[in-house]
């Protein structure tokens, strides 16, 4: 909600700066951003009472001397003769109607009404609707204006449960479905209660006679409707969060005053229907409890002074909650009020000491497995559980985000297969992944299994001993047998026949329930632990990479170190990785053959062959400067 700073500060005696008000609003828990002289407020859903100038002023009265100074019509009003019946009093216990007729529609606006449109840069609509909108901004109470000339017949407030077409005053045609609270005139819906009025009874720029409806609707009747019908209205936002059930007369008298400032009123009459009195909520004064909840020590006098500034009255040992504060019901609610007034940041900390609980680690086996896999070059991944392929026992999501993924996965391997292909498309030739996750199915009620899945394909590793070895079933079986010799693992080969890939490497996978692993795994001693420090992430490139290999013949072994230092530390924006993929010492010829693989990739654009060659040639040239080193073939 956008609120102009000047509309607030004109009611505050101390005339604080916007920054000063901003700090106080944060202390009170009212998040906002400042845009010039506008405060763009975002209130928590329990503070519907703050959605207005007056609402904010009520909270700011804790810090400032506040005087809303808004004149209201004070004279006695005639009773309006209206053919109205309320058939849903539980939804709308209080409702008032005011009828006004003016002799001429004003051409320009004055005072606060004019400031509202000018300062917030809002578009005008028609006179009565404009006053209604301003009044909602000022008081927090939405009102709805019907053109009185279009309102002949019986007006009904009721709940309907039938499909009905309805055209809103914003020219949007909707079909009402399910239960809706509506106003009907002669059996035609003219207003979707608390959300938006209808076109057929709306005011126009020529309207001179108007019936203004001012109601309290239970939030439960309004919530969800604006989303359902895709209508975002100020009224629905306020009614969903709760408005003051006791403000009608004051609001309508203020309405009269605003009209009176702009036009000659020929006729005015009012009627109110109240099916139940608002219960004043009362909470016993208990400053000891308040001190205990917050962890402070204030006197009762100080406590009541804080509440008084927020509009709470005290009578016979009871705190009377104002009608606009429907969120206050308990001592904890009052404690929060006091804490807000003091300022959360001004409450001193009190040392906490939590008694030691038993520490069972039911993830010990799972964590050992993770570290074992890590030590062997596997990367842990996490996948979304939403999938398109439905196994018979898959659980169906009633309202999926993507209709192509409306089931929960019943296995992890398919997700890992997608991950593997994703990385293969990015020229990765050694892929080892694992995931541990709960997997759900509805085979027998909803059942949960915690599973480990691994998938691997391509080279065993980058180093010169593993580079030429390919991952296969035997490799993985031996790996697991090393730590769990007594267990049998059912590694499977995944066929590439149906996969969109030309790569031929074997894909090996395993999916197994975690509870199938024995405690034997706990004997495994991990080679290293995960880092304590959290690395600063370097953005990655999605552009294609290119590979260049260089093989050297080294006769002077003392130069090996110079060569590896030069190449492994070679710096270039487009060299993404370099490693020794081949190493062979020929004892007979007293010669070492050593091969380096360079992976080139840019973060900006796909590299051309000539761009790569510039660096490649530089690498070759610098390395050949080292005596006793040659590149066979050059």
């Amino acid at each position: 909600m956008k609120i102009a700073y000047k509309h607030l500060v004109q009611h505050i005696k101390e005339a604080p700066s916007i920054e000063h008000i901003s700090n106080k609003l944060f202390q009170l828990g009212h998040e906002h951003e400042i845009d010039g002289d506008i405060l763009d407020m975002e209130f928590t859903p329990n503070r519907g009472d703050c959605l207005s100038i007056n609402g904010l002023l009520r909270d700011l009265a804790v810090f400032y001397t506040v005087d809303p100074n808004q004149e209201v019509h004070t004279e006695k009003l005639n009773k309006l003769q209206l053919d109205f019946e309320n058939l849903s009093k539980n939804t709308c216990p209080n409702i008032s109607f005011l009828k006004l007729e003016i002799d001429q529609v004003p051409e320009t606006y004055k005072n606060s009404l004019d400031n509202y449109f000018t300062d917030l840069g809002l578009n005008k609509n028609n006179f009565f609707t404009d006053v209604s909108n301003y009044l909602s901004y000022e008081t927090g109470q939405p009102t709805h204006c019907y053109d009185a000339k279009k309102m002949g017949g019986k007006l009904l407030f009721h709940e309907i449960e039938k499909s009905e077409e309805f055209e809103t005053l914003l020219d949007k045609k909707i079909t009402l479905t399910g239960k809706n609270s509506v106003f009907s005139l002669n059996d035609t819906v003219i207003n979707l209660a608390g959300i938006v009025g209808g076109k057929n009874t709306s005011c126009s720029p020529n309207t001179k006679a108007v019936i203004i409806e001012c109601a309290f609707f239970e939030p439960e009747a309004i919530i969800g409707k604006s989303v359902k019908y895709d209508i975002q209205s100020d009224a629905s936002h306020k009614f969903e969060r709760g408005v003051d059930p006791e403000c009608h007369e004051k609001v309508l008298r203020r309405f009269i005053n605003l009209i009176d400032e702009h036009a000659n009123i020929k006729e005015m009459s009012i009627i109110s229907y109240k099916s139940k009195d608002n219960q004043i909520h009362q909470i016993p004064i208990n400053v000891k409890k308040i001190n205990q909840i917050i962890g402070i020590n204030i006197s009762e006098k100080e406590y009541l002074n804080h509440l008084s500034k927020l509009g709470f009255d005290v009578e016979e040992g009871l705190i009377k909650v104002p009608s606009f504060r429907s969120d206050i019901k308990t001592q904890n609610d009052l404690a929060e009020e006091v804490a807000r007034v003091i300022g959360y940041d001004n409450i001193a900390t009190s040392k906490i000491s939590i008694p030691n609980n038993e520490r069972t680690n039911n993830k010990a086996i799972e964590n050992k497995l993770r570290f074992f896999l890590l030590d062997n070059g596997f990367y842990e991944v996490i996948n979304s559980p939403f999938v398109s392929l439905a196994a018979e026992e898959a659980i169906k999501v009633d309202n999926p985000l993507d209709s192509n993924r409306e089931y929960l996965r019943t296995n992890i391997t398919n997700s890992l297969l997608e991950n593997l292909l994703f990385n293969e498309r990015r020229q990765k030739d050694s892929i080892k992944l694992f995931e541990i996750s709960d997997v759900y199915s509805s085979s027998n009620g909803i059942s949960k299994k915690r599973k480990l899945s691994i998938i691997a394909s391509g080279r065993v590793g980058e180093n010169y001993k593993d580079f030429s070895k390919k991952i296969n079933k035997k490799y993985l079986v031996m790996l697991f047998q090393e730590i769990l010799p007594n267990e049998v693992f059912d590694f499977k080969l995944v066929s590439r026949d149906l996969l969109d890939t030309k790569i031929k490497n074997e894909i090996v996978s395993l999916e197994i329930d975690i509870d199938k692993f024995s405690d034997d795994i706990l004997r495994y001693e991990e080679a290293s632990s995960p880092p304590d420090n959290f690395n600063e992430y370097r953005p990655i490139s999605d552009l294609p990479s290119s590979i260049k290999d260089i093989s050297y013949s080294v006769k002077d072994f003392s130069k090996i170190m110079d060569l590896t230092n030069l190449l492994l530390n070679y710096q270039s924006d487009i060299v993404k990785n370099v490693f020794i993929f081949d190493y062979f010492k020929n004892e007979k010829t007293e010669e070492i053959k050593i091969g380096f693989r360079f992976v080139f990739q840019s973060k900006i654009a796909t590299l051309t062959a000539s761009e790569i060659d510039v660096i490649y040639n530089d690498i070759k040239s610098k390395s050949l400067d080292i005596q006793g080193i040659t590149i066979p073939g050059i």
Partner: protein
Amino acid sequence: MPDHKDITPPELTKDRGSLHPINHMKDSIMSLLVSYGFEIVDGPEIETEEFNFDMLNIKKSHPARQMHDTFYVENKSNLLRTHTSPVQIRGMLEKKPPLAFISGGKVYRKDDDATHLPMFHQVEGIYVDENVSFAQLKDLIYKIIHSLFGKEVELRFRPSYFPFTEPSAEVDILSKEGKWLEILGCGLVNPVVLENCNIDSNKYSGLAFGLGIERIAMLKHGVTDIREFYKSNLDFLSQFK
């Protein structure tokens, strides 16, 4: 000149994988909390409305219960938990105070953009004992934030609203760029929630807090798009060794 026949071959570096940065962050935070005395409890990701909402004082009319915010499954008979709080409800129903639980794991909401995903991770904690106060909650939060972001970090507490805590707060830290960033939500357990779990709210009070793991991991690692965590791209994952 060294004897060239004794040359040492280049080091055979063993390729090491990495934990997923989100799991690593979650594990780190949970280990920290265990060191404070919290006990880890686990619960299902598929929950009932009763445990996910009703027991936590989230009314039927609360926006979070709408179909556009929560994933429902099997003809609305169950839902994908929208937070890890139901695990604590289950814990409180099982044990008597004093109790201190943490739960961590996947949660689901119908969101999908650069800062929100339909699946993300939370760690939540609850401590119920006699005379637990907001001032003690602040002490705990300071300890957590200082451990995560260093003792120099500036933080602030803002009043907020959660149906299951009262008073409620959100905690921001000041970034290097001078911007306040929301880090966690916390508060004193709403007495209604304690009573729902058969705990005498006149005798006991509790504190609760919840952290979004992705949010913290993004800040700690400088990742700006949450979706990077879940592409399973080896170029990304290999940075977290």
